[in-house]
């Protein structure tokens, strides 16, 4: 296999295999080593070597899935030692994720080039990929397309961060692989793979954070039984509790949260059959910054003018109103049949039930009635998905697959106020992907067709009214890589994806308390269509690593909210009505990563993200696009310390520019100033004689006061201040 990445541990030399599949490291002392081999679309493998070798080593990689044009990156890249990332695909194992473990999914990703965070206070954050987020990104949770009320900017991903053992981001239109909506990209989170050796083992993790006095802990157990190691299971339960967060100047009142999770999975292998069952339950209560709940435009303007929240109370773990209560249940069943000739058939079925309850601030308006304990909105979204996939073996240099997927979704809305209606939708998708490689060339191409229907149900004077919308569209992708030599690689890719208008864009009709606007949907919206073109040049060497990506994402019928000239008059005041309108958008960007090994134990890395987003119909900047940024870090490996193993010190630096590109007269305030943050982490994998991973660190060392442009509550409050953390994880069993 040509172009597989080979990492030599512990010295961290790297190379890639040549066209015959061989690799070499020269002038090595005769010692014990480990090599880690990874290749795009295959599971990475780690092998122990005792030099000198007595025979030629043959290494086979297990195919994972198809990654047509994926630019896959991981958080490790910017946080740990330099990675040789020729294949654009790096696996973060639990060891590498350890430093970020226990933080939100967004926090794990935020230092990566091309990624920003959309925050709704300290308790809710979601990733933004190249300027796009929410319903423009698909999240795959252990192979299941995660379905919550994804459209909401303040609806975070319902995933236990402790259960993330591997994290990947696929940037750019990914409609082929992940179906409609993935026009901005996809996020794949995976749990630990099933244990393959007989026995039971586990890990207990405990994290503490000073800023909100958060305690988070998780117990993970896994086992493998029966004679031929053909029954495996895993179980994880996590709980976290956090109080109000703090800015450098004041407490962010009512930003406490808690979360409880259970994740289980089992695998049974029988001859050529593999059966997997997985179930997970997520439950969370999230406080929303009290002062971010304004009743009308005048209140909003008064709060902005004050420059700080009007309600600041003492620190507490109590969660008052406004509040979100969320539960998310997933179960999936998968059957894989491996034919003797290496063809493979897989069938999986999954079911998800997402319940979201939002509680607004109480006032005399509802304190007396029986509505007091009832949510303002109560939405239950049930999703069933079926996927059939057939993968064929390699024939004449071609390998590929085709498949069918079906999803059925039902939404049920109750509560005191109306925001989105009930609906039932069906989605049928068909796709085919083929890949080919020969010598220096590698190519992949694919096509997908989707058919959708969405029926809305509303109740008017006890009469049920329904109407149906139909959509169908195609997504396609073609990509080519050329390997100049073992160090240089050029990849180019063209892809398209589409997204039907989401339920809020079609039918929203209600008040948005946090921004004092009245939102009105538009059932005549057309689907968004994205055409993405990009080029990546990569260099991977022993001392120096570099990549550069330029992309051009053109989105037709881009949907956004625009204030209309009309107002909604209500008791709470006069609200500007926002309508959903469409335009043609162009998002162009550059992402670049660089890492440099100064000495064997000292390395430096930097990432740069640049985005230029325009409404090309009106020739004005697109609103709410993340500012350009630089992330960099330095890591020092302390190999000679006594009593600890694999000790390291990291210093990370982030500079975020001011967003100067925004349309005039739409936002309530100017964009916030640029800011810079420093983080420091010290960690190791042993403490005295006990084997355990631990780290201590400080985020925002200098307690800098700042507001991020993508923080939805920047009108009301600063972002969070200094945060000291301690993380411990203790493995046990065998």
């Amino acid at each position, binding site marked *: 296999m040509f172009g597989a990445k080979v990492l030599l541990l512990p010295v961290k030399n790297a190379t890639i295999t040549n066209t015959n599949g061989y690799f070499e490291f020269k002038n090595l002392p005769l010692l014990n080593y480990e090599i880690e081999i990874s290749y795009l679309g295959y599971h990475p493998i780690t092998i122990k070597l005792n030099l000198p070798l007595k025979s030629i080593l043959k290494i086979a990689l297990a195919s994972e899935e198809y990654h047509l044009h994926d630019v896959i990156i991981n958080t490790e890249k910017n946080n740990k030692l330099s990675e040789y990332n020729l294949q654009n695909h790096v696996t973060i194992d639990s060891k590498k994720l350890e430093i970020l473990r226990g933080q939100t999914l967004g926090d794990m990703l935020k230092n990566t080039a091309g990624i920003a965070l959309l925050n709704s206070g300290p308790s809710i954050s979601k990733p933004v990929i190249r300027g796009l987020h929410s319903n423009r990104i698909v999240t795959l949770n252990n192979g299941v397309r995660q379905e919550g009320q994804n459209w909401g900017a303040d609806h975070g991903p319902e995933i236990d961060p402790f259960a993330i053992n591997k994290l990947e981001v696929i940037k750019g239109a990914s409609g082929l692989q992940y179906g409609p909506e993935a026009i901005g990209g996809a996020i794949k989170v995976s749990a630990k793979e099933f244990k393959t050796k007989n026995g039971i083992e586990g890990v207990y993790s405990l994290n503490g954070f000073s800023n909100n006095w958060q305690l988070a802990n998780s117990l993970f157990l896994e086992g493998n039984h029966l004679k031929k190691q053909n029954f495996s299971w895993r179980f994880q339960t996590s709980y976290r509790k956090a109080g109000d967060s703090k800015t450098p100047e004041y407490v962010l009142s009512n930003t406490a949260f808690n979360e409880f999770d259970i994740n289980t999975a089992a695998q049974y292998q029988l*001859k050529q059959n593999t059966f997997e069952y997985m179930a997970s339950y997520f439950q969370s209560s999230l406080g929303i910054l009290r*002062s971010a709940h*304004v009743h009308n435009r005048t209140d909003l303007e008064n709060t902005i003018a004050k420059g700080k929240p*009007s309600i600041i109370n003492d620190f507490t773990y109590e969660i008052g109103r406004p509040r979100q209560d969320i539960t998310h249940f997933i179960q999936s069943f998968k059957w894989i049949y491996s034919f003797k000739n290496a063809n493979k058939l897989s069938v999986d079925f999954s079911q998800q039930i997402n319940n979201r309850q939002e509680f607004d601030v109480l006032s005399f308006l509802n304190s007396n009635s029986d509505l007091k304990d009832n949510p303002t909105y109560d939405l239950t979204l049930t999703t069933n998905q079926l996927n059939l996939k057939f993968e064929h073996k390699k024939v004449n240099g071609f390998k590929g697959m085709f498949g069918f997927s079906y999803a059925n979704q039902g939404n*049920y809305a109750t509560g005191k106020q109306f925001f989105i209606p009930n609906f039932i939708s069906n989605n049928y998708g068909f796709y085919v992907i083929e890949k080919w490689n020969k010598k220096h060339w590698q190519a992949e191409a694919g096509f997908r067709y989707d058919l959708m229907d969405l029926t809305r149900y509303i109740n008017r004077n006890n009469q049920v009214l329904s109407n149906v919308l139909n959509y169908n569209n195609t997504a396609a992708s073609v990509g080519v890589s050329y390997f100049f030599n073992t160090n240089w690689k050029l990849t180019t890719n063209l892809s398209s994806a589409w997204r039907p208008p989401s339920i809020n864009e079609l039918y929203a009709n209600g008040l948005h308390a946090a921004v004092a606007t009245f939102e009105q949907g538009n059932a005549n919206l057309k689907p968004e269509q994205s055409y993405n073109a990009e080029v990546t040049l990569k260099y991977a060497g022993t001392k120096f690593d570099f990549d550069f990506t330029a992309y051009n994402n053109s989105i037709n019928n881009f949907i956004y909210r625009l204030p209309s000239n009309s107002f909604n008059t209500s008791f709470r005041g006069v609200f500007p009505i926002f309508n959903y309108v469409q335009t043609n958008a162009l998002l162009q960007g550059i992402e670049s990563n660089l890492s440099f090994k100064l000495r064997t134990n000292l390395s430096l890395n930097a990432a740069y993200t640049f985005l230029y987003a325009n409404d090309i119909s009106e020739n004005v900047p697109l609103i709410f696009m993340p500012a350009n940024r630089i992330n960099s870090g330095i890591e020092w490996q302390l190999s000679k310390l006594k009593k600890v193993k694999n000790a390291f010190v990291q210093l990370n630096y982030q500079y975020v520019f001011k967003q100067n590109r925004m349309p005039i007269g739409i936002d309530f305030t100017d964009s916030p100033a640029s800011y810079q943050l420093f983080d420091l982490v010290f960690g190791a994998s042993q403490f005295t004689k006990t084997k355990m991973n631990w780290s201590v660190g400080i985020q925002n060392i200098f307690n800098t006061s700042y507001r991020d442009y993508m923080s939805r509550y920047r009108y009301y409050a600063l972002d969070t201040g200094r945060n000291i953390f301690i993380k411990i994880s203790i493995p046990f069993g065998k």
Partner: protein
Amino acid sequence: MKTINNLTIITITTILVFSSCKKDDPKKPVETNSQEVLTTVLLTGYNIDDSLNAKYQFSYKWEDLDGDGGNSPIIDTIALDSGIRYNCKVLILDKTKSPIETVSDEIEKEKNAHQFFYTPSTNLVGKFSTEVLDFDDNNPKLPVGLEFNVLTKSNQTYNLPLIGSLNIVLSHYDGVQKTTSKSDESDIDINFPVKLK
């Protein structure tokens, strides 16, 4: 044989686990807009110096029966005679309830955390003024505003009729100390047209 047994067990288990109980049916939506909690702000008043004279008694309403969106609210014009001292009361009603619920009673109960503000438009300043009559149990006592006087200046210095407006804000002090200025949380914020005749 053993193979078949295992497969059967797996299949049955799967069917059992996935045969979910029927939840709320999206095809049977409930009406969510009917649960508005106030529909009507009613201003009533009379001439203090001539309390039985029906000519000076009034009742004006600001009413939105179908909640946010939907039909526009019905808003009366407050028509007052000049040079009169009126005593006024504000009543807040929920007409979707049967019998009609007097929401302003709730404000009376929570008067320590609420306050009405009456602000005439600039062209009415000096010609239309208000004076709150009721106070809460805070120490010192602070105005509530469920009952107030309106003084209209006699028309010696300006021409009639004079058209303006009156802004009524009900401030809610939740988690903050009540003061004599507005809070950042307005439970009610409405405007009445005003005509001095």
